[in-house]
């Protein structure tokens, strides 16, 4: 595993200090560059671990759900590397808005199935992956893409992403002589955030997980049970799961990993949410000031930092740049009318 992370995924990922944007915001802004990993996001950390486990269990096929396509691409990549079959379920809405990643998965030899049920986004892709898995469990491993789902996934996926927080902690101490004042990450299911948080949860660092306003499970949900976990969940008065709505396919999910619900409940982490328009601004801001095109998911974390900058003045702020934005460029061309 360590060798794969080093020689295949490209770990450790670097930390970039954003001098221009930091000055503009009046903070010291550090980015943990998960976008520079092979396949372009943090998702590869978890996938390499699960694919190795699947091999060890004698399974020769992987199924996965994907929203933005980053987890699907990472799973297809690991399947190609380890000579496994791969099928990725993706909501039909996301197949359209993340077309680049659909093509990448196909190039990598995976079969991509557009899911037409329900909201036709991430939640429904999870349903369909589970339905596949219950029928094929003897040959197939469900390579779940976030810190959610039934035990042991939330725990296992966190352990595979712990490397993000552990590296970042050592890098911050080297650079700042201290842990950061604030650690910020976007939250869909919550895997990149929990990976980052796990490096700092026992420190004084303030932990901030940023949800999309249209999918704020911690912010607006109540405890519920779906996909094999009990956690905050957007639901109606009868417990029907509600559809999330976010510009970012990777965060378009009405639930959240149970450990985030726990961290929120004990007050160790906070979960504000940002609007699509704040995200669009942050996406452009990072490109213009630092020459980095971020994934729309990660732009949520930056959008909160921009909003909170006045209260963060003079602080050291570490943000997880969970993925790169190539996949979002076509969608942003439409959004920005260019």
């Amino acid at each position, binding site marked *: 595993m360590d060798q794969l992370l080093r020689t295949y995924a490209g770990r450790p990922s670097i930390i970039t200090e954003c001098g221009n944007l930091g000055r503009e915001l009046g903070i010291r802004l550090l980015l943990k560059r998960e976008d520079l990993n092979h396949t372009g996001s943090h998702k590869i950390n978890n996938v390499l671990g699960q694919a190795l486990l699947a091999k060890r269990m004698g399974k020769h096929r992987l199924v996965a759900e994907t929203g933005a396509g980053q987890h699907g691409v990472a799973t297809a990549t690991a399947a190609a590397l380890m000579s496994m079959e791969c099928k990725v379920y993706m909501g039909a809405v996301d197949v359209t808005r993340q077309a680049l990643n659909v093509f990448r998965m196909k190039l990598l030899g995976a079969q991509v199935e557009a899911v037409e*049920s*329900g909201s036709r986004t991430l*939640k*429904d892709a999870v*349903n369909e992956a*589970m*339905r596949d898995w*219950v*029928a*094929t*469990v*003897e040959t197939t491993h469900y390579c779940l893409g976030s810190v959610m789902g039934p035990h042991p996934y939330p725990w296992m996926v966190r352990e595979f992403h712990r490397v993000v927080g552990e590296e970042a902690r050592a890098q911050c101490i080297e650079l700042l002589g201290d842990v950061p004042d604030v650690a910020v990450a976007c939250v869909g299911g919550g895997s990149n955030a929990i990976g980052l948080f796990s490096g700092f949860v026992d420190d004084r660092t303030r932990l901030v997980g940023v949800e999309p306003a249209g999918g704020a499970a911690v912010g607006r949900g109540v*405890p*519920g*049970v*779906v*996909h*094999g976990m*009990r956690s905050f*969940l957007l*639901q109606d008065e*009868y*417990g*029907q*799961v*509600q559809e999330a709505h976010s510009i970012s396919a990777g965060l378009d999910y009405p639930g959240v990993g149970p450990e985030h619900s726990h961290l929120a409940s004990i007050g160790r982490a906070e979960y504000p949410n940002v609007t699509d328009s704040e995200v669009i601004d942050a996406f452009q801001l990072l490109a213009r000031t630092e020459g980095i095109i971020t994934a729309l998911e990660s732009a949520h974390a930056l959008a909160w930092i921009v909003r909170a900058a006045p209260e963060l003045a003079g602080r050291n702020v570490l943000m997880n740049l969970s993925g790169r934005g190539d996949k979002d460029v076509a969608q942003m061309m439409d959004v920005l009318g260019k």
Partner: protein
Amino acid sequence: MTAQAPGAMEVGFRAKRASGRKLLVPYVTGGLTGWQLAVRAAAAAGADAIEIGIPFSDPVMDGPIIQQASQRALEGGATPVSILREVRDLDVSVPLAVMTYYNTVHHAGPERFAAQLVAAGIAAAIVPDLPLEEAAPWCTAADAARVETVMLAAPTAPDDRLPRIAARARGFVYSVGLLGVTGERARLAASATALAARLKAITDVPVLVGVGVSNEAQAYEATRVADGVVMGASVVRRLMEAGPEAVGDYVAQVRAALDAH
């Protein structure tokens, strides 16, 4: 594991089994157009109990037909409360069970949900996404309210798990017919009779095979070993395509096949 006396549905099932009758439990999605008529037709055609689905937004155990039925019912405005209200008007003589997903129970709260079932005259509940390890809050509330909780056993369950499932089951043990979701299949899976035989060997609670039992011939085959069958997708498809009378005709056909044992 309690020494609670069997509930009404289980007592009835045991008596019928003792008389040589194979048990037939059709499933109907509550809230679908014509669902109450379908339940009455099924009861009149020889069902031994009827399972009423309370539709859930994310039915992960269900294949396309019951997914579609659930979505239609929800779009038509069905809620757990509206369905249980309509259950009260059914006036059928066979026991009724509800099938729903755990969030419906969790959201209402186990005690309140159990009380709602009792008030509606429901005898039993089937909650397929509630694993044995997490079942205590619901099962305790259900036992106290005398709602029989049917437990599911999967073909992958190891031998040491089956007695624990059977000990927790009230009404009957739901012997899942295949690895996979609900829906019609061309053939009865070999796993259907294999699991039913394993269960029959370790429990005298009635054992019914459900999921993938798709027509009267498959029902006959499954009940060579099992005490009965639960039939879902083949019933619901008829209700959606042809209406409640077609459900009655179909249940009568299956009844006749089972009575040929």
